[in-house]
């Protein structure tokens, strides 16, 4: 089967005679730049990151590099390629493990290598490196990538729970060509020869009651497709609490502001304030100060473990801008008779 030739030197941006050190340097630099956790354009970066890893897989291994170099320098990136007659692929040959210092050998688990790679080195993947005697379990090789997304949740939904539609884009194997990227002699016209397509799924997600801002909801098996029989990744949704017209969020508490008249602050009063469960009447005690906060227990945001924060009612004392004659004389009488001096 014809596959697209990959120029691994071009991918890493090094000349054909580059030293092992130069190749490692070029790889490290590109890997940092295109790692999906770091790059801005996550989707484009992921494909690029796979390509870089594949190139490094071949060029960092003297045997594979030698084999690859035997193909000659005349191939162009993307040209149709058939393994030359008598080409024996390196299936099953042992590969070096982790580096001597016990660090991980860089290895992009769960990524598909191109058909070009498979046709040359099929089945011969680098063994996972050991790490300080702490072995990793193998079932994770070939596992699909986790997909991340944000989900906006209103405060009412966070309190009571709800069901929300979400759109998730993820890479899945192309059904048209069975993930090979080829249809007969030609590149698959559905996936453009990449072997995978971006699929948009719409789901309804159940938001459990009591979610908190920044919490992750995991939906098992809804991430990227696995490779070689590996399990699919998971979908992680980060809860973002939406702004509410009546409340500000302050940790577990909700904050609502009310304005009171000076005499209400002095004499005390009853005020209706909104809560997530509808309005309640609260008592503003006599002698309430400007910017004082009144606490309504248990009317804040739900917390882990079933408890709830409080509703904090911020009191602002508003002073009338204009007064009529009789009001003025009352204020004047108060000014004469009051012993209150805020500057004493």
């Amino acid at each position, binding site marked *: 089967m014809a596959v697209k030739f990959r120029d691994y030197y071009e991918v890493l941006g090094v000349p054909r005679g580059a030293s092992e050190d130069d190749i490692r340097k070029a790889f*490290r630099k590109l*890997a*940092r730049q295109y*790692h999906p*956790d770091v790059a801005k354009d996550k989707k484009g970066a992921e494909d690029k*990151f796979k390509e870089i*890893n594949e190139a490094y897989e071949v060029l960092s291994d003297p045997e594979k590099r030698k084999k690859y170099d035997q193909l000659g320098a005349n191939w162009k990136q993307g040209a149709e390629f058939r393994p030359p007659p008598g080409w024996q692929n390196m299936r099953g040959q042992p590969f070096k493990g982790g580096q001597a210092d016990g*660090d*991980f*050998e*860089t*290895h*992009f*688990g769960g990524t598909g290598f191109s058909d070009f790679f498979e046709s040359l080195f099929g089945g011969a993947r680098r063994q996972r490196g050991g*790490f300080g005697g*702490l*072995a*990793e*379990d193998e*079932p*994770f090789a070939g*596992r699909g990538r*986790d997909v*991340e997304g944000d989900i906006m949740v209103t405060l009412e939904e966070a309190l009571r729970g709800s*069901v929300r*539609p979400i759109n998730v884009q993820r890479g899945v194997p192309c059904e048209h060509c069975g993930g090979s990227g080829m249809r007969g002699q030609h590149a698959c016209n559905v996936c453009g020869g990449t072997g995978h397509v971006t699929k948009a799924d*719409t*789901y*309804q*997600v*159940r938001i*459990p009651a009591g979610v908190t801002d*920044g*919490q*992750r*909801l*995991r*939906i*098992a098996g*809804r991430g990227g497709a696995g490779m070689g029989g590996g399990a699919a990744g*998971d979908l*992680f*949704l980060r809860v973002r609490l939406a*702004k509410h017209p009546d409340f500000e969020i302050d940790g577990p508490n909700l904050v609502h502001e009310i304005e009171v008249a000076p005499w209400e602050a002095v004499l005390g009063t009853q005020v209706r304030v909104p809560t997530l469960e509808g309005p309640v009447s609260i008592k503003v005690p006599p002698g309430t100060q400007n910017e004082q906060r009144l606490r309504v227990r248990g009317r804040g945001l739900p917390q*882990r*473990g079933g408890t709830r924060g409080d509703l904090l009612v911020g009191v602002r004392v508003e002073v009338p801008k204009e007064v009529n004659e009789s009001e003025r004389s009352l204020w004047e009488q108060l000014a004469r008779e009051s012993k209150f001096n805020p500057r004493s």
Partner: protein
Amino acid sequence: MDDSAHLAVIRLRIISPSNQAPYTLEELARLGGVSPALVQRYLDEGLLEAIAGNVRTSWFFDDSTLFELRKIQRLRRELGVNIAGVGVIRELQRQIDELKSELDASRQTRSR
């Protein structure tokens, strides 16, 4: 004529988040594809935190911890970052996230 007769009704599947959390240290390790000893090491290094419990046998973790564990593994496996480096990177990524949401918030306020 009744218009509603011509509207296709699409019922979307309702999917529920995993409700297995909270996890014990062993369950967390299994879901993260690592050994319990490695999770223990990340806890000792301050890369992961338990959501409850103050002794090993009573530690509990949630899906946010699992997400963090998988992030750590990805950075180590795919970029060859060591444990100290992972700590720095995750801290910087958190700071970038915070700055981004602050920037979004101030943009929203300004456009109002």
